[in-house]
């Protein structure tokens, strides 16, 4: 027995959710975003990590680092600001203690974050050849001290030098996570493609400021923070769509994904896979629900392979 949906497509029970992102095979296109998912084990009570495509671990630096003093977070309309800074256990403790604690079959992408280019390359080198690490995500949103504190990802020449150095340091699949705080995301996407990146992750949080009027002070001790959550989703969709038009690199899309519907918007705009971020805080099983919802959407619309949705946004007027 077969049924048809509103557009005349056959509704199929079996949907192929597998995708390949930058050379990394994923059982489905739903990952979780760096900085919102700890080192994975924190979610064990809420979500079987083997249900999702994989996760991107908290960004790693060469040495363990302490973060900013409180307050570190602030609520904003449909979103939140955070300024945690570089707090993490360091790359060696991650490999030694955090990775072995994860169940077999969980796809782990390691995120790297540093203040100098040679240090970025060293973190990449230490993660290369680690069997549990499926790929690297280069977080280019760190302030670059030698450029006067602007983010690596805000200057095309600095970004090019960074991607080149990390590309030389590793043969692992390399995604570059771009900063949205730029004039033209297409220019940054082309730089990454030219320097041998295997894919792009976008977007990182949007630089923002929140104010306590009673105290006439910024809410965050760091003054500035990164805005995340549903508030930034349309901005993220726009940037994914623009980057898709500029480069052939596969894109992992993120920014305010709270539901399967949100994730499908990113796929349609050209993302091969997506990352669920801030939603993990309030709904720690969210990524699993997004997988189920994508499967149901595909079945309802007669889509046999989720990969067929990638870039399927129709922009011509009927």
């Amino acid at each position, binding site marked *: 027995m077969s049924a048809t949906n509103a557009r005349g497509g056959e509704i199929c029970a079996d949907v192929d959710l597998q995708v390949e992102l930058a050379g990394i095979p994923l059982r489905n296109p739903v990952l979780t975003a760096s900085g919102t998912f700890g080192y994975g084990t924190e979610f064990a009570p809420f979500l079987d990590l083997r249900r999702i495509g994989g996760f991107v671990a908290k960004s790693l630096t060469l040495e363990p680092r302490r973060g900013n003093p*409180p307050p570190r977070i602030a609520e904003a309309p449909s979103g939140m600001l955070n300024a945690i800074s570089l707090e993490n256990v360091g790359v060696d403790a991650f490999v030694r203690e955090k990775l072995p604690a994860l169940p077999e079959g969980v796809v782990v992408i390691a995120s790297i974050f540093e203040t100098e280019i040679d240090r970025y390359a060293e973190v990449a080198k230490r993660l290369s050849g680690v069997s549990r690490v499926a790929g690297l995500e280069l977080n280019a949103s760190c302030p670059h001290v030698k450029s006067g504190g602007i983010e690596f990802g805000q200057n095309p020449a600095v970004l090019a030098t960074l991607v080149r150095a990390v590309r030389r340091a590793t043969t692992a699949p390399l995604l570059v996570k771009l900063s949205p705080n730029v004039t033209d995301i297409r220019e940054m996407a082309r730089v990454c493609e030219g320097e041998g990146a295997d894919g792009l992750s976008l977007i990182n949080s949007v630089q923002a400021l929140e104010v306590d009027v009673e105290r006439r002070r910024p809410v965050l001790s760091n003054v500035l923070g990164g805005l995340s959550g549903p508030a930034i989703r349309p901005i993220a969709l726009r940037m994914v769509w623009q980057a898709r038009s500029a480069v052939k690199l596969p894109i992992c899309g993120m920014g305010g994904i709270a539901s399967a519907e949100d994730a499908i918007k990113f796929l349609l705009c050209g993302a091969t896979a997506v990352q669920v971020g801030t939603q993990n*805080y*309030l709904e720690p099983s969210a990524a699993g629900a997004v997988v189920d919802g994508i499967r149901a959407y595909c079945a309802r619309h007669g889509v046999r392979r989720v990969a067929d949705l990638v870039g399927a946004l129709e922009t011509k007027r009927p």
Partner: protein
Amino acid sequence: MIPIRTLAEVVALSAEGASSYRLTLRIDGWPGFEPGQFAMLSPGPQGAAPRSDPLLPRPMAVYREQRAKGAAEIEILFKRHGRGTALLAACSPGDRVAVVGPLGRGFELPAGRALLVAGGTGIASVYELAARLHARAPGSARVLLGARSAGDLMGVADFETLGAPLEIATEDGSLGTKGLVTALLEVALARDAEAAVFACGPTAMMRRCAEIAEARGAACSASLENPMACGFGVCLGCAAPLRAGGFALVCRDGPVFDARAVAWEGLP
């Protein structure tokens, strides 16, 4: 206790004192909780279209519970002071509230006598501790409650029913001794320097409790409050500075800390 994430059902919402609320939630699969643990609450609507504004759940102490075959009812006492608590205060029976909990490390039960000091909404964190200590050895826990005014107190009738020794201080003198609850602690600790102190309330109150206890050489545990997005150690938003340097997470390493370990001047 392994935490769960589920949609709880509002059983009742009632006024508590003049300015607070008592929320009763029915939760399937609730695993129970230890005194001082908390839960993250997001009022509905939930499901297909999760609420995005306000986005973050609110950490709330679990006040007490009643368990029966797989399901449980928990009570939450809270004050309305922002958008999240306003939504909770607008709940009706049958509404859904997303709950993640129980979370955090609660109070460690002392071997001997205890002085429980709580101010304002901090009262909600110490009822279960008082109940367990009183059940173990009646009279071993003395409860000191404080608030600005009588109407700002919560749970007083429950503490009276419990029967543990109870003293009250209000800043305006409308109930009990006029003044701060920390003054009651000074007197109580002078009488019984062997007692362990357990404090929950405004930061300034807990800091003063820590000083009083330290001066008398008494142990003091304090349950801290800090804004947090997740409640289980991943957003890293709820950092509390430590005297030894660095930070602890209120949600994962606390909310209950040895008061001597906390760098009180660094708390926001």
